[in-house]
């Protein structure tokens, strides 16, 4: 497979380095007037607490990273969809602290010759890469997140998938005592997602164990989650406990909830609207007025469009 450098950012959009380096001064100057009028108030009121933040050692850069400026840490960690902890975006940051992430194992099983269970310590010891990816939520907002993780294909190769392994099913954690959200039947718990085998083996598909060079916060799917950057965010399951290689296309949690709204593929596609809202544009968090045009495959078309050659993307949404 030919992997090209993404040309998703126009050279004209890139701020010259000297100006970029002084960005905080510009922001401060612009805010000065407002600050004078409103002494004693800053938007630090909703920044995430620093407790328990832990650096991940030996993280290397990746050529697959976007050169876009990552979304601020506080937005990435305070604006989450993790329905097991509540459907409001502020709830996961409040309640996911309860999630037990130790001990944690991920069992890889199904259509493979060497099924096995990986302890989280073992996964954290793997060579880790930083991947700065765009994340496009099906709700038409987006972020840029510096994930830390490794390619899923590395893990899958170790269990030696058989010829029958056509799909991969991801089963996520279900802890009814820590997850207040699972008391209501919003979705069919545990949350299950799936990929086609070639999608799972694609080098852009990673298992993430961190963000911003640090251990993954619980609300972002600790201790290990999937990240598939060219699909809507809900395809990237959080807090994964089981990876099953299967012959038949798995039925995902969102398909069971509303198959006409959330298809198995759910590739980012501005030409296929959600039945209730448009997917043509998106709001980059935390931008106010501007909406950006959404790009097919979330801008990763150069790398992944070939996976869907000849497929009707409107039918297989």
């Amino acid at each position: 497979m030919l992997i090209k450098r993404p040309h998703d950012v126009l050279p004209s959009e890139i701020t010259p380095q000297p100006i970029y380096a002084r960005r905080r001064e510009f922001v401060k100057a612009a805010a000065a007037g407002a600050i004078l009028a409103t002494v004693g108030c800053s938007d630090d009121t909703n920044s995430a607490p620093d407790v328990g933040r832990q650096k991940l050692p030996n993280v290397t850069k990746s050529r697959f990273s976007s050169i876009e400026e990552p979304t601020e840490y506080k937005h990435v960690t305070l604006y989450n969809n993790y329905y097991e902890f509540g459907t409001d975006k502020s709830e996961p940051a409040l309640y996911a602290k309860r999630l037990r992430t130790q001990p944690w194992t991920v069992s890889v099983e199904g259509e493979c010759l060497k099924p096995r269970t990986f302890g989280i310590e073992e996964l954290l010891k793997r060579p880790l890469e930083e991947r700065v990816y765009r994340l496009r939520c099906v709700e038409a907002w987006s972020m840029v997140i510096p994930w830390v993780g490794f390619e899923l294909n590395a893990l899958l190769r170790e269990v030696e998938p058989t010829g029958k392994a056509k799909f991969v099913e991801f089963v996520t954690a279900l802890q009814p005592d820590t997850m207040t959200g699972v008391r209501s039947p919003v979705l069919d718990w545990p949350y299950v997602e799936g990929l086609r085998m070639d999608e799972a083996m694609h080098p852009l598909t990673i298992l993430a164990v961190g963000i911003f060079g640090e251990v993954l916060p619980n609300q972002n799917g600790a201790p290990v989650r999937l990240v598939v950057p060219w699909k809507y965010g809900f395809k990237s399951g959080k807090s994964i406990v089981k990876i099953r290689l299967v012959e038949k296309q798995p039925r995902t949690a969102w398909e069971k909830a509303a198959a006409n709204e959330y298809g198995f593929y759910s590739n980012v596609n501005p030409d296929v609207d959600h039945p209730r809202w448009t997917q043509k544009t998106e709001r980059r968090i935390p931008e106010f007025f501007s909406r950006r045009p959404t790009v097919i495959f979330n801008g990763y078309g150069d790398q992944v469009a070939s996976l869907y050659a000849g497929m009707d993307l409107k039918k297989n949404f």
Partner: protein
Amino acid sequence: MQPRQKWISALKALLFVVALVPFARLAVAAVWFPGVLGANPAEFITRSLGDWCLRFLLITLAVTPLRRMTGWNWLLRLRRMLGLFAFFYGVVHFTSYLSFDHVFDAVAILKDVVKRPFITVGFTTLLLLVPLAVTSTNAMVRRLGAKNWRALHRLIYPIAALAVLHFWWMVKKDITEPAIYASILALLLGYRLVAYLREKRTLRWARAASGPPVTIRRD
């Protein structure tokens, strides 16, 4: 209990200020402290204004049951302002959607209104509120005649139902909040239905008991 005119005026002035607080709070936050509006300030503002439109619709609809249960007839004199605030929040909710979501792009807005049922419903709700706001003055009540005016303003019932439907269709999956609003609306409309049926029965009973017809005023 009939408080004096002075007190009613003071109460109205107070209500006016209080009813503006949700709007003022958002405006101040948007201009000076966007941080408190979270990661998606545009969505926060649009939804909050929509919430307040729905709340004012329900508060307006609560006036009659409350007045009947307590006998506080002066409550009726606050109803117009409450209804106009529902309209106000509907208008700023719509404006917020126009400006943040579409930056006033007429084509995109039209497509949205036609293609998305929840937006169609929201837009219809706002359109239906317009004649009620326009005919809210004393002069208009006189011009239309009380009977016609009352008939027209019964539009508030389908309007409130459409507003709840708009919210219901907007949420992705968790319908807890729209269900709460729907239950309150069901209570408020249910009260009227029961009152209406009782009146009809009383009327029939009265007609049967004494010769001349009895009229009972409803509003």
